[in-house]
């Protein structure tokens, strides 16, 4: 592998990892703070993409973006109020069943409203070319844009959690929920805020990924599996762990695929390449079940 190709693959890995971070940070926050397993997180990813690109096709990208993010906030508030709120006190199995059901409902709703055929996801013109990074390395502008947005969103969420009053309450709620409640903080409101933040990040990931992948029913689901791997590896509830694990998994997944062909090691290489991230998860579960980055 030449140096330029290696660099390009590292960039691919970083970009994929940061996208995973955007999707999984919501799941890990919700799990860490509210002790809630949310399988329907991928649906928020999907819905935001559908809102943005069906509105964007009519009224342009900018307005589509606003409608997508606005729409996902409304959906998240309603969802938390109508369903999720009832699941906080239930066991993890009930939460998985409940939110899995939500996922199926959302997938079918999308199919009823938008049909089974994928819809077109437009990109703004200024993002559709590629940028020359070195003599023989061109990189799609849009992929760089995803990387930038993911870094900005990560910074924003870190500032929110570590520098604001609401962030302080969220962290306190995650550690000592009863104490925070006893101090007169409206914990229901706090949980709703965390849920909406998580939803917006998932939605942002969906909007950014839409033009790269396929905007169709069920698109969030394969990615959610990787997000769960990220949480196991990084440790539930840890922002730093989530970032580190996302990038690690993005890199491992990308680099293993960058090396293997169909006949590599008699076909075994291909199997190992698609297993690589799960092997990592297995090792982490055996040696450090609380996750790599939790105290």
């Amino acid at each position, binding site marked *: 592998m030449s140096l330029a190709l290696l660099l390009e*693959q590292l960039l*691919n890995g970083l970009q994929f990892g940061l996208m995973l971070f955007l999707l999984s940070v919501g799941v890990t926050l919700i799990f860490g703070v509210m002790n809630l397993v949310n399988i329907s997180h991928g649906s928020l990813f999907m819905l935001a993409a559908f809102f943005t690109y069906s509105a964007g096709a009519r009224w342009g990208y900018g307005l589509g973006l606003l409608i997508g993010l606005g729409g996902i906030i409304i959906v998240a508030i309603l969802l938390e109020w109508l369903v999720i709120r009832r699941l906080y006190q239930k066991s993890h199995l009930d939460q998985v069943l409940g939110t899995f059901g939500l996922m199926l409902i959302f997938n079918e709703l999308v199919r009823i409203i938008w049909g*089974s*055929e994928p819809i077109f996801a437009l990109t703004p013109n200024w993002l559709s070319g590629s940028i020359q990074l070195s003599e023989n390395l061109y990189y799609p502008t849009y*992929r760089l844009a995803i990387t930038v947005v993911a870094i900005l969103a990560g910074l924003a969420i870190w500032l929110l959690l570590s520098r604001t009053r609401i962030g302080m309450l969220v962290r306190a709620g995650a550690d000592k929920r009863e104490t925070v409640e006893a101090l007169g903080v409206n914990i229901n409101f706090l949980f709703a805020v965390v849920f909406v933040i998580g939803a917006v990040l998932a939605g942002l990931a969906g909007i950014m990924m839409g033009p790269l992948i*396929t905007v169709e029913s069920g698109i969030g689901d*394969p990615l959610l599996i990787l997000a769960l791997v990220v949480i196991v590896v990084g440790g539930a509830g840890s922002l730093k762990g989530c970032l580190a694990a996302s990038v690690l998994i993005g890199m491992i997944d990308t680099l293993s695929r960058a090396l293997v062909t169909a*006949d590599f090691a008699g076909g075994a290489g291909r199997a190992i390449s698609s297993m690589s991230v799960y092997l990592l998860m297995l090792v982490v579960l055996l040696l450090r079940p609380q996750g790599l980055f939790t105290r």
Partner: protein
Amino acid sequence: MKATPTLLKCLLATAGLACVGAAQADIKLGFMGPMSGPLAITGQDLRRGLDLALEHLDGKLGGETVTVVAANDQANPSVATSELTRLIEQEKIDVLMGIAASNVAMAIAQPATQAGLPVLYTHAGPGALAGKACAPNLFALGHQNDQYGEAMGRYMKDQGVKNLYAMGLDYQAGWEMVDAALHGFGGKASAKVYTPMGQVDFAPELSRVRNSGADGLYVFYPGGAAVAFVRQFAASGLKNQVQLYSVGALVDPTVIGAQADAALGVISANTWNAGIDNPQNQRFLKDFVAKHDREPTTFAAQTYDAVMYLDAALKKAGGAQDRAKLIDALRHNDGFQSIRGNFKLNRNHFPIQDMIIQQVEKTDGGYQQKILTKIEDVSDRYVDECEMKW
């Protein structure tokens, strides 16, 4: 034919009396397709092709009124076999038609054969049924799966592709489509890469293609993966460096709207094309577009064609009562005029047909598949293993 006396009886029957036998059609057509699940779009277009054909035939097959009994196989072999039992034993269908998934086609071939039911596969065409497991009552009118890859392989060879890079989805159809193309190409690929189902990001694979110095890239990606692959291929700037070859599914009408300009220039092999110039095809195309506001898929075209095929055979056999006579008519179906143009039935009941090499180009209203050339009389590799003679 028999409709008139029943109708007369009904008209003569006094009010309040049940009109026994009036609802009973003369031909009961079983239709099976994946109406839900991962292949739901395919099932939907199979049905659209069927409905349009029956509309064009005024609801009659071989001149007799037809009732369609639909079944959903969910692209799942075990669901399909139990649905087949229902269609045969409860519904007592005369002919079974449809089927898109190869695994379903394999699963129901034997029970259907044992029941002696005439079966017309409109889209599925697995190799085993074209070879050793060929059967007198089994007709695969759409294609043998390999015909697409075989034709594209020959075309790439004609184009002087030297360094061929092959990619596909990591499952049965993906391996077969790649192998068939390499068979037609008559050489080896410089690299063969399979990507797992559910993978949405192709950046690492595309970076490798760029660095391989390949002058031809052949891929097999259907459905959602096709949209992701084609868009990422275009965004990577590889279009100027390497020609993308595939089979019709990569850029078919269900995905091309989501791919838009990214699909321009893609060359693919197909059994049907909107531009095939015969009156029956132009009628099919016009009415399909008017009804569904987009071009028909190959699924719809093949099913439409299969209904017309059955219609011609039923006319010749004088109905479905005498199965031996119907099967003979299905074999020597000289009254059939295909929307695909050249169409012959091979000894194994699979088609010998012209494969179309097409390229995506932009028109005022959207996108179209321009016919570049035809690979004539493509059959399949399995026919020698079929012992059936007629």
